[in-house]
C-alpha cells in the first residue's frame, strides 16, 4: 500500500512539473554553478526572461505558452548530455546549451531524435552548412566569422595591410579555444602576418608564462579566445605587462562586463567582438521591466539585466521564438512539434523592420536562413571597454567576414563530418 501511495505521489508530482501537452517546451541547459557560472547566470536569465515576457505580455507565441524547464549542466559535457536526455521527453522543441563541448556531443543525438540545436556564436562552426547539418543552426555568426571579423578590423586599422605584423592568439586549450586556429592560419597566409599560438590550460587561473612570452616577443596584436576566469586573468596580466589594450581583441565570449571589471582601470581600451548591440537603449527593456522584473517574475536574482551576456541570452531566445512563430505560420497550427520548428529555423528571416517591431532596432544583423545556409551572414562589430564610465561602446558597424576564405573551410570541414557520419548531402 505504501508503495502504491508513493507511486501515486510521484506520478502527481511529475504531472505538476511536466508541461501541459500544448505548451511550447524550450529547455534551458544552463550553468548557474561551477567555474563558469559568472557567464552562465546572465545568459540563462536573459534567455528565460524573454520567454517570460512573451508569456506575460503576449500570452505566449501564437497563443501557446512557452515553458522553459531549466537543467543545470555546470558547463560539464556529461551533465549537459544528461540534461538533454532528461528533458527531451517533455516535448522539447530546441536546445541551446551554451557550450561547445556539449554541442559536439549533442549533434548526433539531436539528429537522431529530430530536435533542433541552436548555437549562436559557438559550437561547431561548419554546422553553418545546412546541406550536412540538418538539425543544427548557428546564425547569425560563428567562431570563424569572428576570427575573420577581427582580422578585417585590424586590416582597417592598418591601411588594408597586415604584411609583416605579428598576431598572437591566446586561447583556451580546448575544442572551443582551438576553433579559430584554422581560419587564422589561412588568413595569415592571405594577408602575410605571422600567427603565434599561445594556449592556456583550463581554467586559466595562472597565465604568467603566456604573458611573459608576449612581453618578450612583443606581438603587434593579441587575439583572445577565453572563457571563465581565463578572461579576467588575461585582461589583468595584459595590463600588468603594459600591453596596449587597444591592440587586444577578445572573441564575443571574452567581452562581458565580468571580464574587465576585476582589472579596473587597467582594462581600459580593451576590445572585443560583438554579434549584437550593447547597453539598455532598446525598447524591449521597458517591456521586460514592466512585465517581468516589476512583476517579480525575473529569473535568478534579477540583477543581470542589460549586461552583455544577459542581452545575448535574450537575443538567442528572440531568435528561437521567431523560429517557432515561423514554424506555426508554415504548419498552420500553433501547437508545433520539433520537426515543424526545424522547418521554422530553416525558413527564418529576421529583417531590420522585424527587429524594430520586437523592440530591438539595429540590435542584430538581419539574416535569412535557407536549406543550405544555417550560419547567417557572420558579421560582427567591435566594442571597446571604457573603464571610467564602466561600459562597452560599439566602435564599428557590422563588419562582414571574409567568405572567400571561410566558405571553403566550412565546406571542407562539413564534408569530413558527412563522410565520417555516413551522411548524404541534402538541399539538392
Amino acid at each position, binding site marked *: 500500500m505504501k508503495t502504491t501511495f508513493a507511486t501515486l505521489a510521484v506520478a502527481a508530482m511529475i504531472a505538476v512539473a511536466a508541461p501541459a501537452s500544448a505548451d511550447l517546451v524550450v529547455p534551458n541547459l544552463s550553468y*548557474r*554553478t*561551477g*567555474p563558469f*557560472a*559568472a557567464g552562465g*547566470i546572465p545568459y540563462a536569465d536573459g534567455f528565460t526572461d524573454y520567454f517570460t515576457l512573451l508569456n506575460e505580455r503576449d500570452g505566449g507565441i501564437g497563443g501557446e505558452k512557452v515553458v522553459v524547464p531549466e537543467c543545470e549542466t555546470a558547463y560539464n559535457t556529461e551533465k549537459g548530455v544528461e540534461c538533454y536526455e532528461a528533458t527531451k521527453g517533455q516535448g522539447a522543441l530546441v536546445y541551446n546549451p551554451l557550450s561547445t563541448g556539449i554541442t559536439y556531443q549533442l549533434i548526433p543525438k539531436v539528429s537522431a531524435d529530430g530536435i533542433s540545436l541552436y548555437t549562436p556564436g559557438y559550437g561547431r562552426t561548419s554546422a553553418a552548412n545546412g546541406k550536412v547539418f540538418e538539425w543544427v543552426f548557428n546564425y547569425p555568426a560563428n567562431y570563424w566569422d569572428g576570427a575573420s571579423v577581427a582580422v578585417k578590423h585590424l586590416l582597417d586599422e592598418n591601411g588594408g595591410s597586415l604584411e609583416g605584423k605579428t598576431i598572437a592568439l591566446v586561447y583556451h*586549450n580546448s575544442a572551443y579555444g582551438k576553433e579559430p586556429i584554422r581560419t587564422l592560419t589561412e588568413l595569415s597566409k592571405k594577408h602575410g602576418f605571422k600567427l603565434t*599560438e*599561445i*594556449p*592556456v*590550460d583550463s*581554467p586559466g*587561473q*595562472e597565465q*604568467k*608564462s*603566456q604573458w*611573459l*612570452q608576449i*612581453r*618578450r616577443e612583443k606581438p603587434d596584436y593579441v587575439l583572445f579566445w577565453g572563457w*571563465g*576566469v581565463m578572461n*579576467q*586573468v588575461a585582461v*589583468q596580466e595584459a*595590463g*600588468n*605587462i*603594459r600591453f596596449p589594450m587597444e591592440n587586444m581583441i577578445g572573441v564575443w565570449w571574452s567581452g562581458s562586463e*565580468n571580464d574587465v*571589471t*576585476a582589472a*579596473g582601470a*587597467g582594462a581600459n581600451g580593451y576590445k572585443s567582438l560583438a554579434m549584437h548591440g550593447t547597453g539598455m537603449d532598446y525598447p524591449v527593456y521597458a517591456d521586460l521591466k514592466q512585465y517581468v522584473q516589476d512583476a*517579480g517574475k525575473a529569473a*535568478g*536574482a534579477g*540583477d*543581470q539585466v542589460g549586461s552583455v551576456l544577459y542581452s545575448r541570452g535574450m537575443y538567442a531566445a528572440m531568435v528561437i521564438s521567431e523560429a517557432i512563430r515561423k514554424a506555426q505560420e508554415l504548419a498552420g497550427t500553433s501547437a508545433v512539434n520539433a520537426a515543424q520548428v526545424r522547418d521554422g529555423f530553416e525558413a527564418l528571416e529576421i529583417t531590420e523592420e522585424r527587429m524594430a517591431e520586437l523592440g530591438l532596432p539595429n540590435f542584430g544583423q538581419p539574416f535569412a536562413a535557407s536549406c543550405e545556409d544555417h550560419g547567417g551572414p557572420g558579421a560582427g562589430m567591435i566594442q571597446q571597454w571604457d573603464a571610467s564610465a564602466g561600459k562597452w561602446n560599439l566602435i564599428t558597424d557590422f563588419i562582414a567576414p571574409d567568405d572567400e576564405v571561410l566558405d571553403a573551410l566550412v565546406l571542407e570541414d562539413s564534408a569530413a563530418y558527412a563522410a565520417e557520419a555516413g551522411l548524404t548531402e541534402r538541399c539538392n
Partner: protein
Amino acid sequence: MLPDQILFALEVTLNGLMAGVMYALVALGFVLIFKASGIFNYAQGVLALFAALTLVGFQNGQIPFAHLINATFGTNLHTFGWTLPGIVAIALTAGVMVGLAWLIERLVLKHLVNQAPIILFMATIGLAYFLEGLGDVMWGADIKTLDVGLPQGISETVESATAALLGYGFFIDNLDIVATIVAVILVASLTIFSQYSKQGRALRAVADDHQAALSVGISLRFIWVLVWSIAGFVALVAGIMWGTKSGVQFSLSLIALKALPVLMLGGFTSIPGAIVGGLIIGVGEKLFEFTIGPMIGGATENWFAYVLALLFLVFRPQGLFGEKIIERV
C-alpha cells in the same frame, strides 16, 4: 651583457619562484590540517573561496542570503549600505573562519573521532560541496572585485634596476612581491608555533594518535577547532592573494589543484616543505614551459607540475620534508 635567452630564463625563474609562493600559500592550509589531524582536507580550496567571498561581502556591506530572502519574502534587499575598510573586513572574516571551524568540529569532526583517515577524507569532500553551495547562496555566484589595497602590476623598481644592471628590465608583479613577504611571515610564525608552543606540540601529538593524545589530557576538540581556525586564516590569505588577481569567483576553489603537486613534493607534514615544494614546482613548470613548451605546443604547466612531483616521489615517497613513517606489524 648576458645573452637575451639567459636573461629571459632568469626572468622566468624569478616569476616561477613568485608563482611557487602563491601555490605554497594554498598548500600550507593542507599541511596544517594534515599535520595536526592526519586529515587530507579536500575542502581547503573551497575554504579559500568561502573566505574571499565573505571578505568581499563584509567589505561591500552585502546582505548574506539576500537572494533567498528576497525570493521568500518578496523584499528587495541587497546591501546594508556601508563599505568597510579592508583591514576591518579581514578581521571580521577571520572571525567567521573561526566560527566555521567551531561548527565543523561540532557538526562533523566530533562524530568521527578515531575513525579511519579515509572516513575523515570523505567527510571533507562533503564539506567542500556544502561550502560551495553555501557560498553561492550567501553571496551569489557573480564575479566580485576584491580590493584590500594590495599593489598590482609591474614593479617599476625591479624593472628599472634590472634594466640598468643587465640591459633588460625584468617583469615582477607587485602583488607577487607582497605575497612572498606575507608567505615568509606566515611560515615563520607557523613554524615557531608548531615547534615551540604548548598548543603546537599538542597538535602534533593529536596527529600521531587521537587516543594517546586524549589519554594524556589533550582536548581533541579544542585542538581541532584551533587547527581548522588557523587553516581557515591561511585560506583567507590565499583567497586574498588569488582573488585580487582574478576577482573572487568559483574558480578560486580550483587553486587547490595547484597545491597538490606542491604537497606531493614538499611532504604533507612539513610547513617549510610547502614553501620549498611550491618554489620547485613554480620554477620547474615555468622553465619547462619556457624551454620545452614551444616545441610541444605549449600549455604544459598543469601536467608538468604533477610529472615533476611524481619524479620526486620515486626517490622520496614521503616528499622532500615529509616524515618517514615506519609501521611495524
